[in-house]
């Protein structure tokens, strides 16, 4: 038996004792978790706005640890330290072969594909700890996890890099990086990033590494804006400033060349349409709040690029489709093709190009995970990133 963070309903997660995982298929591996993080997208599950989560589901899709058991066709070896991508990819299907790993056709079990296929026209790939839409896999906010297709996903990390430096290869670092890559950043570009959560902060850092001449970060939490500034961005506090006017001025009256929505479906904001969307989400007629995205589409220059790493799950109302068409915008989005970026990003961590630890605000024992969720949700200014450690003792 092991301890794990389980979901029981909106704002109700608990650390409980559940069955240990086992090797089932020959390409599986069992990982003993040493570090696992709470992701901003876990808060969508916490808020109950993602369908298909069942009571008792083990959450967590950012994790790393030590290989303790392998199936006969796993390429991993006992004792290796690995970081595991949140996307499960088989390596053998068409999408995996063209490196669109998050569109893997086989990692969501056949009998689980119908719900997402009905919603989206195609089934989603399997993801760890992220509802039965994405397979219903037990996640990594636990002592142990079963990793299927372990010969494809996990990356072995060198011993001299401590957990905090490499943990975010599992999701938010490649997600921020792909968010910037999808914005097709050119030298001389001015790029605006909505949301200074971990993905937004990594997108800011990535955009700068990719050569943007100016990156403007938008949020309202002073501490998060300060972190963006520390990464080299200029900042806008949307509670104090008219974002569109500011962006026009800060880009010389042209409009920003590319916009990155690192906020997603639970955007803050007090505009009337956003409040209506919040009300609809609360009473369960589920329109995604897309305040940030709508603003980004109006702010980007004609012919510009719109990148959406933020998570959306359903429909949205009053989408500025006309602006999208009339301005000739390009839109790129999607769950991250994590495996595509791992090797390069690990090198950039090793040579110091990317700083991955600056945003970690709290390290807690796994046992204290429920409090981690509550604070990460309620105190977003100070709780920027929570890392859970199964081995850590509870504070007395």
């Amino acid at each position, binding site marked *: 038996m092991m301890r794990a963070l389980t979901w029981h309903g909106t704002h109700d997660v608990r650390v409980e004792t559940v069955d*240990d995982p086992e090797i089932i*298929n020959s390409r599986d591996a069992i990982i003993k978790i040493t570090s696992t993080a709470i992701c901003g997208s876990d808060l969508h599950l916490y808020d109950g706005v993602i369908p298909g989560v069942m009571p008792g589901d083990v959450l967590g899709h950012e994790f790393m640890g030590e290989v303790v058991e392998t199936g006969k066709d796993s390429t991993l070896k006992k004792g290796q330290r690995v970081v595991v991508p949140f996307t499960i990819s088989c390596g053998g299907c068409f999408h995996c072969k063209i490196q669109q790993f998050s569109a893997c056709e086989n990692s969501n079990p056949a009998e*689980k594909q119908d719900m997402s296929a009905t919603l989206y026209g195609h089934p989603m790939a399997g993801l760890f700890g992220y509802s039965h839409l994405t397979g219903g896999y*037990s996640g990594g906010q636990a002592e142990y996890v079963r990793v299927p297709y372990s010969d494809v996903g996990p990356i072995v990390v060198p011993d001299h890099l401590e957990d905090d430096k490499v943990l975010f290869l599992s999701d938010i670092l490649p997600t921020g990086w792909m968010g910037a890559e999808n914005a097709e950043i050119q030298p001389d570009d001015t790029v605006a990033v909505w949301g200074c959560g971990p993905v937004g902060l990594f997108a800011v850092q990535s955009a700068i590494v990719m050569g943007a001449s100016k990156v403007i970060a938008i949020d309202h939490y002073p501490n998060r804006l300060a972190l963006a500034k520390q990464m080299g961005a200029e900042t806008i506090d949307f509670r104090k400033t008219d974002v569109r006017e500011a962006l026009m001025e800060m880009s010389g009256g042209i409009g920003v060349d590319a916009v990155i929505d690192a906020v997603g479906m639970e955007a803050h904001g007090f505009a009337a349409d956003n409040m209506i969307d919040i009300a609809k989400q609360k009473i369960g007629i589920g329109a995604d709040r897309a305040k940030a995205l709508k603003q980004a589409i109006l702010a980007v220059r004609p012919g510009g690029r719109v990148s959406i790493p933020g998570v959306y799950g359903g429909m949205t109302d009053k989408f500025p489709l006309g602006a999208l068409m009339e301005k000739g915008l390009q839109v790129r989005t999607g769950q991250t093709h994590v495996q595509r970026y791992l090797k390069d990003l690990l090198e950039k961590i090793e040579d110091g190009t990317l700083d991955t630890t600056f945003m970690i605000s709290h390290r807690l024992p796994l046992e204290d995970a429920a409090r981690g969720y509550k604070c990460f949700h309620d105190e977003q200014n100070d709780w920027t990133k929570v890392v859970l450690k199964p081995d850590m003792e509870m504070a007395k």
Partner: protein
Amino acid sequence: MRSNRDLKTPASVVGLGLAIGGIAFGTFLSRRRKGGADDAPVYARKSPPGDHSLVGRTVTIRKPRAELYSFWRNFGNLPQFMENVEEIRENGDTATWVIKAPGGASVDVETRVSDERENELIAWRSTDGSDITTSGRVEFTDAPGDRGTRVSLIMAYDPPGGAAGRALAKLFLREPQVQARHDLKRFKALMETGEITTSARRRDQTREAKQQENG
């Protein structure tokens, strides 16, 4: 092996998901791509012609045609991904399918290959006098470039006669479509990855294990 040869209800038909009545389906199947005014397969039409139901589904599998064909042609392999088929025994030119039926029973169906072209298609039909009349057909064609092989499974079934039969059919006839879709996806996973994907945490929580428990 549990067996109940007296089980002739649509429920057992459904376990297989491909019970059909009548030879008319032969022509129906072979003309499936010329079903109407457009080029879409007939099973994609909003109202398929006739009073019988038709199940069809295509998947693209990133493996050579010959490999997929030979795996399928060895009927003993099919239960690995066909969830409701317990066992298929080949006996000369016929094969006996042991189909799981509701309530833990099973039913045997004898089939004969009615048409086959190496690496292209396999069609089968239940033998005369079988408790259930069924037919199915699987086709293998090259996908463009290195995308592998398109595998189309087509099955037709006819709601059995009688008021009771129709009532039962209503209960179950949505199932074959779902079953065919899931079976094909499992075939794809098995061929492309060497295993059938499961999200279970423990062996006794897999779908297969639970079914045996319930069976």
